[in-house]
């Protein structure tokens, strides 16, 4: 079968093309089990070498190929043709400056990520046996969901609050903070709650739920943000986070 792509192009260096424009490509002999990323490769390799996009592992782990596919944020490497049909519209993710075609400047996103102290904080001496700090399985499960984030920015750039206001820390940074706030071994949680309690922290979240279906890892993003809000409201972290458990309904 044939697949028609409608791709949002932008190249600041070429006169006449330094405004975003749409370009169509037709790719022939496509299997319905082909991934969108492979077809974008075929466009680039067989038709137009200037098409610019990011990808690395191509297996949904590195998080570099988030883009807007048929209007919704997805990872191109995790979407099959049969999931999206034979007319596919591709745009860069929204809310970050577009550098070229599908490549956006991720620095503002990583600035927000770094702002929430996304690292383990515990200055107490290691246990006497010199081995790991122990934790019950139940306690581990409370933040298991938010350990899955691959920083692809699909959630943050699906958020209307972030589109309107790039100062908003955004869903992904809150997910990363959640992973440490609710880790019983971590001691930096109070400071993180202060950071996220700022006006452009969690309070910009309007519980819209766009981030949840956008996550290619099926993280319950809005739930995680909600738990961080409650932790700030109640000034504690005990008894707030609940395990997600098996996903009963797909995020999409």
């Amino acid at each position, binding site marked *: 079968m044939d697949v028609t792509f409608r791709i949002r192009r932008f190249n600041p260096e070429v006169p006449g093309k330094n405004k975003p424009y749409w370009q169509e490509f037709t790719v022939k002999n496509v299997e319905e089990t082909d991934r969108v990323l492979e077809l974008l490769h075929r466009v680039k390799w067989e038709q137009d070498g200037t098409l610019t996009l990011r990808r690395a592992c191509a297996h949904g782990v590195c998080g570099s190929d988030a883009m*807007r596919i*048929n*209007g*919704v944020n997805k990872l191109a490497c995790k979407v099959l043709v049969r999931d999206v049909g034979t007319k596919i519209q591709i745009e860069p993710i*929204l*809310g*970050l*400056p577009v550098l070229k075609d599908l490549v956006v400047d991720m620095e*503002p996103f990583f600035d927000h990520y770094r702002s929430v102290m996304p690292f383990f904080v515990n200055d107490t001496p290691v246990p006497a046996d010199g081995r790991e700090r122990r934790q019950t399985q139940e306690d581990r499960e409370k933040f298991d969901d938010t350990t899955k984030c691959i920083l692809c920015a699909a959630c943050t750039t*699906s958020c*209307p*609050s*972030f*589109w*309107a*206001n*790039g*100062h*908003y820390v955004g869903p992904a940074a809150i997910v990363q903070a959640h992973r440490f706030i609710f880790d019983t071994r971590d001691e930096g949680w109070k*400071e993180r*709650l*202060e*950071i*996220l*309690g*700022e*006006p*452009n*922290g969690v*309070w*910009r979240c*309007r*519980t*819209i*739920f*766009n981030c*949840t*279906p956008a996550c290619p890892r099926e993280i*319950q993003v*809005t*739930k*995680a*943000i*909600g*738990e961080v*809000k*409650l932790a*700030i*409201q109640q000034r504690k972290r005990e008894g707030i986070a*609940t395990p997600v458990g098996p996903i*009963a*309904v797909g995020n999409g």
Partner: protein
Amino acid sequence: MTSLVLTLTETLRYRGALGQWSWVLHRITGLGVLLFLVLHVIGVSWAVFFPELWEKEILIYQHPLFTIGEFALTACVIYHALNGLRIGILDYNPKWWKHQQQAAIYVLIGTVVILIPTFILMFQHVLKHYQSPEAPFIVSLAFIAEAQFPFLVGIVVAAVAAVLVSSVVGLFTGGGRASADKNARQSHHGSQLERFWWRFMRTSGILIVPLVFGHLILAHIVQGVFEINLINATIPGVPVNEALGMLANGINNSGTAVEYVAERWNFFAGPVAIWRLYDAALLALVTVHGFNGLRYVLTDYTQGSPLLRRAMGYLCAMGAVALLVVGTLALLGTIDQTMVDMARAAQDAILAGG
């Protein structure tokens, strides 16, 4: 990051789930209700300060355009209430995330289910009005424009004043973006104010729902806006008691909107003027909830400019204070027979002139 126009158009282009459209509707309905709230509070306060203007206002509310607006307003209130409850419940129970999509559908269904009988009942009043033996009086569009123009001017003046104050504050604090960003990087103190507002929006919302539904039932279903200045009509929520004075007997003897207000505010259950108390609670909660909601919307889209961001905050604060002051003064005021007579004379003049 992106310009306002781009943000708005892309918001509509992104194919988000139902939650995105619920949010768009929540904002639109909230803004709609707030706009009418401003007109309404100032309008009712005129019953105390400028009786003839309140009489005019009610005649305007009876214009077909405002009847359409009244139906839209009712729909806005009901959707905003139900969707607000959904958001509040999910915010306090993140573990119920599985049900959010379903809940958004229930909100839409609930809105329609409540609206159908509400609209039917409201429409009875419209029918009754237009089927009355004497042809209903309809004010001209020019009349409406002239009467509503000051509101428009007021809003524009408030917006300009907010920007001016913000620029002055900016001059004195050197309040450019650079300093704001620097502060943000240096110290981290969660905003107690935002923490409070988040809780306030949810708790006030829950308190507002029964109050505003009660208000809608009395003023739009039990009686429509057409009966507010109907001569000898009874006043909903005020028992008829001929023994009491003309302005407290539960009957609109003069057929003026001013007496309608007086009747309700003069009704005492024991020592308590319950309708004044009811309206005071509604005024305080809805005004603060509404203007904080407006601040949320306006500051969402003005983060790029410290000047505008501050201005939007001032605008909302000014609006809330102005409305609270005007409303409170009116609720504390008295309406006497001379004012009712003035209203009657104004009404007669308009009806004769029309």
